[in-house]
């Protein structure tokens, strides 16, 4: 009667997270069974605990672990929530469902006292589980909201749509003016990168600037791919750029506002974000370059500026102690900005006319880093 089941590919993919989740619950159970105070040890997710991993060229969590223990009220609640989330994820895997992070948060409404007090809390716990199980969020059946980052440029890819059909798309010719929308899943089972004749990728912080470059036809003139970051880029946007870089050999240049927050956007693209340091090697592109706006651009191009506010200054000061910003370039950038006490938006370049950015600024800046158009 015993029959050895051959696991299908899908079942295999489900097996590992299920086992890992089980192990986590078992650990808590065993601690209770032995009369210990239940606890979990998790790497501290802070800038004090990220280390450069030379072999991968990115920043990942270091060895410092924090403890989440039932000895304290908050710890006890978080452990209880962990149990609920584990159970919920197991159920989802079993029934081949998935939920958005926001749905996950609302699901907890039914968890009585284990209910989350904010979505940040549930998002963070989802990441904790990623770290503890060494599984990606997608394997845990959790997905983000669509975030609508866009691509414009001569890249051809093949996307498998929700009906399972594979469609070839050219990100310049097959799309409207808003470009190709990056889906939340950009792994190979979903997207195959086929070909490009572009020379590089420009990652742009704001939608306004993205649209300016599209309108001015910069992707064609400079033979590049434009990617809209939409602020701090989502995981899928970073992963997509990483694949463009690795598989199609496109260099990435980052064009953002000139303020402390843009520095962090760059850091998360090139070095790895603190929040997702456990998967930096999937998301970060170590060769990405910072194009501007730099502190010296503010002076050299005499850009219209805003005064740094107190939270800007705090952010800059915090960056001075961020290990990712330890090199000469960043030290100078940060200190200069603190000195001039000013920041500038990328769209401030419009001071010199709508075409100035594509005709003058970008060509000048690109040639500085050896890209000539």
């Amino acid at each position, binding site marked *: 009667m015993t029959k050895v089941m051959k696991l299908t590919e899908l079942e295999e993919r489900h097996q590992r997270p299920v086992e890992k989740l089980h192990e986590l619950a078992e650990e808590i159970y065993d601690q*209770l069974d032995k009369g210990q*105070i*239940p606890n979990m040890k998790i790497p501290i*997710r802070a800038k004090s605990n990220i280390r450069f991993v030379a072999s991968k060229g990115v920043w990942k969590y270091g060895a410092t672990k924090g403890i989440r223990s039932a000895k*304290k*009220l908050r710890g006890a609640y978080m452990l209880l929530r962990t149990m609920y989330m584990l159970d919920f994820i197991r159920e989802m895997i079993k029934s081949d469902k998935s939920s958005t992070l926001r749905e996950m948060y609302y699901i907890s409404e039914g968890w009585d006292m284990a209910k989350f007090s904010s979505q940040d809390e549930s998002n963070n716990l989802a990441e904790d589980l990623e770290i503890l199980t060494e599984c990606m969020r997608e394997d845990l059946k959790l997905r983000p909201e669509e975030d609508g980052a866009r691509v414009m440029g001569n890249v051809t890819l093949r996307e498998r749509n929700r009906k399972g059909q594979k469609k070839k798309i050219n990100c310049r010719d097959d799309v409207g003016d808003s470009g190709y929308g990056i889906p939340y899943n950009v792994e190979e089972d979903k997207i195959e990168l086929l070909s490009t004749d572009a020379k590089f990728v420009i990652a742009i912080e*704001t939608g306004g600037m993205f649209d300016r470059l599209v309108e001015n036809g910069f992707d064609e003139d400079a033979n590049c791919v434009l990617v809209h970051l939409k602020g701090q880029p989502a995981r899928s946007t970073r992963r997509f750029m990483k694949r463009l870089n690795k598989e199609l050999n496109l260099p990435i240049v980052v064009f953002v506002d000139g303020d402390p927050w843009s520095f962090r956007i760059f850091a998360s693209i090139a070095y790895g974000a603190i929040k997702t340091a456990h998967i930096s090697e999937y998301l970060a592109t170590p060769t990405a370059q910072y194009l501007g706006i730099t502190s010296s651009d503010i002076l050299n191009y005499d850009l219209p500026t805003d005064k740094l506010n107190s939270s800007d200054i705090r952010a800059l000061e915090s960056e001075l102690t961020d290990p990712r910003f330890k090199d000469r370039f960043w030290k100078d950038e940060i200190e200069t900005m603190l000195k001039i006490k000013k920041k500038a938006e990328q769209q401030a370049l419009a001071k010199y006319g709508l075409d100035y950015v594509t005709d003058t600024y970008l060509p000048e800046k690109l040639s500085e880093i050896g890209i000539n158009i």
Partner: protein
Amino acid sequence: MASTSIAQKLAKKQKEISVSEFFERNKHILGFDSLTRAMITSVKEAMDNSLDVCEEAEILPEIFVQIKKISTDEFRLTIEDNGPGIVKKQVPHIFGRLLYGSRFHSLRQTRGQQGLGISAAVMYAQLTTGRPSIIRSKVKNKDVAYQVELMLDTKRNRPKVVRDDFVVWEKESGTRIEMQLRGRYVMGKQSVLEYLKGTAIVNPHARIVYKDPFGTQYLFERASEILPPKTEEIKPHPQGIELGTLLKMAKATGSYKMTAFLQKEFSRISSRVAIEILTKADVPLERHPKRLTLDEAKRILEVVKKIKIMAPPTDCLSPIGERLIKKGLKNVLGGLKPEFYCPPVTREPNVYTGNPFQVEVGIVYGGQLPQDKPIEILRYANRIPLLYQQGACAMTAAVEKVDWRRYGLEQRGGHGIPFGPAIILIHFASSKVPYTSESKEAVAKIPKIEIEIEKALRVCGRKLGSHMKRKVKKAKTREKFDIVQKILPEIAQKSSKIVDRKVPDLRKTITKIMNVVWIDEEVVFEKRRHKVTLKVYNYTPKGQKFNLHGIVPYENLDLDSCDPKPKEIKEDGKITWELKRIPTTEIGTATFELFGMDEDEYDETELYVSGINPTSVVGAEPLPGDWDLKMRPPTIEEIIEEEPEEELDYDEVEEELDDESHEADGTGREASEAG
């Protein structure tokens, strides 16, 4: 020649200063310097008299106060009491003559002192409106009341009867005064209402009804049926008496010998002490007091300072007492629910300049009291609330000198008036209150008095401090209690469901998290009885056996209701239970019932433990040494405290996790990286 005539002119002028001029010049020290204040002072003077006479006659005071508006700045004031009344002959003198009174020469605690007050109010009314005051008074067993319309002859300081008559008054006895005066009616901190409220706090035996100019009626119900003990007159105490006074008394005495003089005219001097003083001061025992020299008097005072003399008798003082301070405060807080009443402190009597005095302090803390304001100080002298000149008062100075930070209040630099949700009540009782002025608004900053007030504040403050510590400890324990009672069983349930094994036994884990004995009290008021349940949770890894002690109101305790039977009950309410061994993670209980008290009269039992390491007990204090326990305490079993490992709390690392954490600025950066 010229100089003589000036002196004569001056002398003539001096004679001509009439009482009204004196009044006019000294309005501020008499408390009539503003329209607002004149109103309060007038009410106050009449109230003082009424409360004093009621106490003297041992009548529970019922006082009616009414203010009616006549015109923009003219008011009619009526104050009526149920006191013993005043005989006809005395009425005009008491109300119509300055510095006339029964108390001017006596040494004991009364509200009024100089006999200046009520007649000053009558004069103020007359000077501002030109109207006589109407006084009606009835003595017990008389058929009718005497009613007189009275003015003051301001030149001769004599009363002037405008009209008088006998009228029918259904009251058994009592006095009523009606004055029409110029004034201003205000609400707020310095107001008639506030004054009456303050009076009600420290006179819980009085029932006060007040009708304000808008027709609103306020009732301050009596909180106690017991009159304050009658105060006795005393002779001056020798310690701290001034040289001039001593000499004056020596001249005036009828005694022929110094020994007799000292014994007769001073309190607490026996013949032995008198001889000791005189011998040490090198003054002949037989010396006639009238011939006492200045030097001898000085030496006597020197000696008196050094030798031990019994403190003055204190039956001349009438402290409010701990119970009534609490009751009074409760009564006046009305709907506001504070978190904690510090057990009030009544200090032992002390002496300044031969006058005995006594300080009492009560503190109410927390709950619904305002949080971020300076604390409220309620000042009282001989049961009179003091509303003005807070800054000049010894009581305020004492509050400012105490470092309240130790007791859990905010105070910049450790001095000044602290901030926080607290009311401090200070009562200064003395046979002679050293006011800074006649208007009786501030107690003079005499070092001995200030120090004594400070001490009382510290004693009470310490109680507040230990309440705060207990509160923190309790909150922490309550949190852990939540963990082990609610969350932990859920974690166990959930994890066992996931791993598909039976729910683990949590006892060991629970004791590891708690590791305390927790005593929780529940008081239920039912059928006019307080049912008190003390639950003892043993959250230590071992069985525990120890004694539980409490202080309960003995006269209200139903002995039969005690379960288990206490090992010991003393008449002062000290009760001791020898608890049965409570196994680990189990609960022991002790219950008792109290009868004959109002619901809000009992809310908490002072609890102590012995026979157990008190640091591992939450909800009870270690048994004080003076408890005088008759039984042998059981041996203390040490609770092994586990060394807490140095560990980083994952959920308390407060660092920005998000690279994008800043206010949305419209560039779309608010889109979370989580996406």
